[in-house]
């Protein structure tokens, strides 16, 4: 068993887990944060993307013990209270989701992508950057649109949040 301790969505949490416990299972089962999903077992689909110390990681591909001592943000911690993050707002406005299962990982990956491209994004870059996230519903058309729109909003507002729709 391993003792793990980390900050999740601004709150310090700790627990005793089997050594083999993946970060995603610690978040879902120990912390009850079920917004982070498991869609494959091979780190291909990206439904499990969270932020660790400000960077997107696939929480199905690392042990909870490896994340011990780090700062984790999940989809539940992205909005500022009732104010949606601009990427969340853009996914809604541009119909960037259907069944919603890949959505948390998509949004977390998109936030990271926008942060890594302060000079802005174009369609080709967004599509290439989405390599690690699979969506079966939308054909990506509206996801790409939403990320491009959010990128512009964030450039203008420097990350200011938008009132929930």
């Amino acid at each position, binding site marked *: 068993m391993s003792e793990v301790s980390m900050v999740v969505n601004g709150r310090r949490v700790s627990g005793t887990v089997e050594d083999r416990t993946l970060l995603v299972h610690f978040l879902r089962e120990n912390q009850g944060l079920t917004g982070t999903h498991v869609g494959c077992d091979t780190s291909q689909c990206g439904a499990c993307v969270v932020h660790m110390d400000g960077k997107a990681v696939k929480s199905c591909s690392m042990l909870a013990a490896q994340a011990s001592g780090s700062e984790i943000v999940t989809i539940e911690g992205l909005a500022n209270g009732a104010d*949606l993050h601009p990427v969340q707002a853009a996914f809604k*406005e541009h119909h960037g989701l259907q069944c919603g299962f890949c959505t948390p990982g998509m949004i977390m990956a998109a936030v990271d992508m926008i942060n890594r491209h302060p000079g802005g994004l174009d369609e080709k870059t967004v599509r290439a950057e989405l390599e690690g996230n699979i969506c079966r519903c939308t054909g990506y058309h509206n996801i790409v649109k939403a990320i491009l729109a959010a990128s512009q909003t964030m450039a203008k507002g420097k990350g200011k949040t938008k009132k929930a729709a």
Partner: protein
Amino acid sequence: MGMEGIGARVARKEDKRFITGAGRYVDDMVVPGMKHAAFVRSPYAHADIRKIDIKAAEKMPGVIAVLTGKELKADGIGNLICGWMIHSKDGSPMNMGAWSPLAVDRVRYVGDAVAIVVAETKGQARDAAEAVAVSYKEKKAVTDAVAALKSGAPQLHPEAAGNLIYDWEIGDSAAADKAIKAAAHVTTMHIVNNRLVPNAMEPRAALGHYDKAEDHYTCWTTSQNPHVARLVMSAFYNVAPENKLRVIAPDVGGGFGSKIYIYPEEIVCLWASKKSGVPVKWVADRTESFMTDAHGRDHVTEVKLALDKDHKITALKVDTIANFGAYMSLFSSAVPTYLYATLLSGQYVIPAIHCNVKAVYTNTAPVDAYRGAGRPEATYVLERVVETAAREVGVSPAELRRKNFIRSFPYQTPVIMNYDAGDYETSLNAAMKAADYAGFEKRREKAKKAGKLRGIGMSCYIEACGIAPSAAVGSLGAGVGLWESAEVRVNAVGTIEVLTGSHSHGQGHETTFAQLVSQRFGVPLDQVSIVHGDTDKVQMGMGTYGSRSGAVGMSAIHKALDKVETKAKKIAAHLLEADEGDIVIENGELKVAGTDKAVPWFQMALSAYTAHNLPEGMEPGLKEGAFYDPSNFTFPAGCYICEVEVDPDTGQTEIVQFVAADDFGNIINPMIVEGQVHGGIAQGVGQALLEGCVYDAGSGQLVTASYMDYTMPRASDLPSFKVSTSNTPCPSNPLGIKGCGEAGAIGSPPAVINAITDAIQNNDLAMPATPQKVWAALKAATRH
């Protein structure tokens, strides 16, 4: 059109929970005392089970129960069935082999469930599942349907001699033969429709909970149709009577057909919950999903298309072998028959059509309806052969299609369908204009200078949705009726709940269904709630598949709204001392037309419940239900154009343009409709370029069992799409809706392959058109 009513591009109500991580899927459910299950599955494609030794597994840490098929059978749990009876052309009923939820004496595909282990944690359940010692005697396997029909092939089921499930036909063979003989030109093709894995992003899951105190079962499951699941589990599998079984399908992460069926796992989890005394949750991992979700397509077809000297189509003859896998899944028999062969007339006047279909058992996962279900296969056959015929006789593929379009409606095809309405030329013209079809040759020349091979291909599809009426499908063999139900409850404060038998797993019903209500009563969208997916809340329903929720599900709501409106107007008329016929509903008020006399909606609702001042003899309350059974199928149709560039050095195909012009009849929310088309096209392009399920022919092992091996379409594989719609209202339902969920997956594969074969000037190309295949076809073409 109001701001939130029919036709408005309203953002989805359900999105809030999904974008904040608050969606609730089956794997998110926790029941006190809940334990975890893992299934022991066959590693062989075909083997006899000699012995199952569970002793070691039972002693593993955390193990609560290890249960096998023998105990399941002893408890009287029934075999899985296919619910649509098809008769062979000799009149004999289809040959259905037995499918036990847990295999007892023989396994027939890799992944066939043999035992269930229940343990404290998922990890412990898996560890113990590996410790279950099953002694198998491996048998020869066959995975290819054509090979399975040959004499000497391994035999799967004693009920199906020669692995043949049925040998079925439709249409007039002699008339088709005669027309082919007399034809000026006959195009002959061998067409393979590649096997696909649906791959909803949420893996299948089930949580079975037997409540001893109430002697009652609850099943949370990833289902597109929880009521059908309850019906089938009660009526056929003997899990529990309907009044003792509640099925809940909460948020479901995509279905695409694969979550219509009742699988062994939910049956076994419910049974195991009673047996072990704990709630039992099972969640598939992705490889389990690849192995055991019902697959799609897998047809091998020979086709002949006959043209007269004026290029009018005179006949179509089709001979198809359909791979059904190891067992007949719930809906499987209908897919290559009434959802396939009946659509072979496409958008064309074809005087003589004949289609023969052989359904075959193989040692592979069961095959059933996957987005489009039969209609993509029909469209692929027809649109490939029509395009090829145009090339062979040297006319424009667009003009050959235009010449043969059906132009007068209703139109009776030679293969059952009676098309009620359509305007195919409008879609063709819209697509050609959007794609700048006329300017293509210039673009081809330009690409050539850049060293690329550019090609253009089109596809004019038709599909049949809202499968109905019930009496008609019953006469064709369906075991259920295909109506839908709705209940509209107006609360005392005027807010409204709509209970529907449809199920939303991405389609946005919480928004579109509410738009229907908002349109009718002027009630804001946020005061309308849609309730679905729970058999304890909604009495009965048939669920969501076959693009039926709009045409059938919303029509049921429409019918219930009619009844509510009638009563609401009666109450208002009484309150306003006016004639019922003079009451109109506007802006949230019930008004006497042409006067300023009005009663607000909420006040009328309150009056219905206070019942202090109702018309003589009227019952209190305001709640109405309806069952709606359509009068006909609906027939969405459209034209898709794909333009590609092939790199001759690598065989890599890039889709440089994709245009969709669809006729879906009336549209409730264009944003959601466009989203459905985008997703459908992505799946169709996936089939055409990337996806192919591969079994090793010798061992029957599934080679493509993860996302490392099965190529899912990713963002960089696809372009942005140019989509548009034309609206020829459907005369067969009160809302004029045709359905839009499957069109993209139906229309796109032939458009893509027609484009690539145009680019490389070699028509001999099978899906998925991987760079390797395209390169080889290109080399073969240039050698000639």
